[in-house]
């Protein structure tokens, strides 16, 4: 093993952090937003929306993420009439995929909030939207924070598969450096270390936020 030979390429690999982070952050936010909407559909009274949200979740959880990524990227001319960028396809597929998982997490979180909370808010004349936001979701989010963090960590690691559509994230860059030097172990280990550190930082950030939200306990 000779790490010296990849030292000049390290900045190049490190620049991939930004690419990975961008994809994970935007996809995470997208997934969270769609996830909330889907979870509200799931607990709502409108049968069609419930059916839609359940079907959505079933399909996105029931097929490989890499397949979804490739369909969105390679089939985009047939789907949308234009070839979208790899970066956009990555964000879309990760966002849509994690929405399915996040919607299940949020649904369970909402249903775990005591029914009386909803009744108490209703009895005070609080409209549905405000009740959901201020009373139900804010309590649910606190309970599901560990699960959400877990999903976010999964997303960070899984984002490495964008390499198959040529997005130059950490993984892709490590691979490029490897084929350039005819030595794959060192750059891949280096990439692995970067992912691991990112996950550690996320874990600590999650614990910190959780601790702050436990104030009322």
């Amino acid at each position: 093993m000779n790490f010296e030979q990849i030292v000049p390429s390290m900045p190049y690999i490190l620049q991939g952090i930004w690419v990975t982070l961008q994809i994970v952050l935007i996809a995470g936010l997208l997934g969270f937003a769609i996830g909330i909407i889907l979870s509200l559909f799931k607990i709502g009274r409108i049968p069609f929306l419930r059916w839609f949200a359940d079907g959505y979740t079933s399909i996105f959880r029931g097929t490989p993420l890499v397949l979804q990524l490739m369909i969105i990227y390679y089939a985009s001319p047939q789907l949308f009439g234009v070839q979208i960028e790899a970066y956009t396809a990555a964000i879309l597929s990760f966002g849509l995929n994690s929405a399915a998982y996040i919607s299940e997490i949020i649904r369970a979180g909402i249903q775990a909030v005591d029914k009386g909370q909803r009744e108490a808010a209703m009895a005070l004349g609080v409209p549905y939207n405000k009740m959901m936001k201020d009373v139900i979701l804010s309590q649910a989010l606190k309970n599901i924070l560990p699960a959400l963090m877990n999903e976010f960590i999964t997303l960070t690691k899984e984002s490495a598969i964008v390499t198959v559509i040529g997005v130059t994230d950490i993984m892709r860059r490590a691979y490029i450096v490897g084929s350039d030097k005819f030595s794959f172990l060192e750059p891949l280990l280096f990439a692995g270390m970067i992912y691991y550190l990112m996950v550690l930082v996320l874990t600590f950030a999650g614990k910190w936020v959780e601790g702050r939200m436990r104030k009322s306990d």
Partner: protein
Amino acid sequence: MIKVEGLYKSFGQLEVLKDITAEIKEGEVVVVIGPSGSGKSTFLRCLNLLEEPTSGKIVIGQDEVTGKKFNPQKLRSEVGMVFQHFHLFPHMTVLENVTYAPLKVKGVQKQEADQLGRELLAKVGLSEKADEYPNRLSGGQKQRVAIARALAMQPNVMLFDEPTSALDPEMVKEVLDVMKSLAKTGMTMMIVTHEMGFAREVADRVIFMDEGMLVEQADPTSFFSSPSSERAQNFLQKVL
């Protein structure tokens, strides 16, 4: 103030309320008693439409609340409710619990809401707990906060659904005392309870329910000394 005519409520096959007709006048304190499963709580919950009546008519003030076009939020902002299990919002401080609805439903300014909230907490004897979270309070204190929270909307009517049934015995009195002083201010109140002593002392009228029917109503003195229906006689024999 409240008029109920021919109220029916079913959960699926189960008929919980059968042909309830009653009237509550402004400033009146009505206590509803009866065996468990007699429909008392359901009756109360129909009055602010937490349960949707199957048929019948409810008029509160000028509004027919069972009408198709009626907006339940308006009704609920005018009718306060206190639950057996308090249902305080655990992620808000005591003061935030009390000010939440005035701020978000009525659009009262923060400063004004806080002032009103602190006044109400003083009234229920909990000024010093304003900035605590509910989980630091005893059951009796929680229920007093819940009463303050309902009063913060300045309701015309207060509904109490077994407000002391979940409390340890030594905390029952502090909650009943708050309710007594509230009754003295002329608040219209409807109370489902098992506290017969309280009913006798505070109620203007007692409604006795059994098997979903309003069996008997009378002033507390005559009800407790000589109930006219056999079912009420049996019930009182068991609880007194």
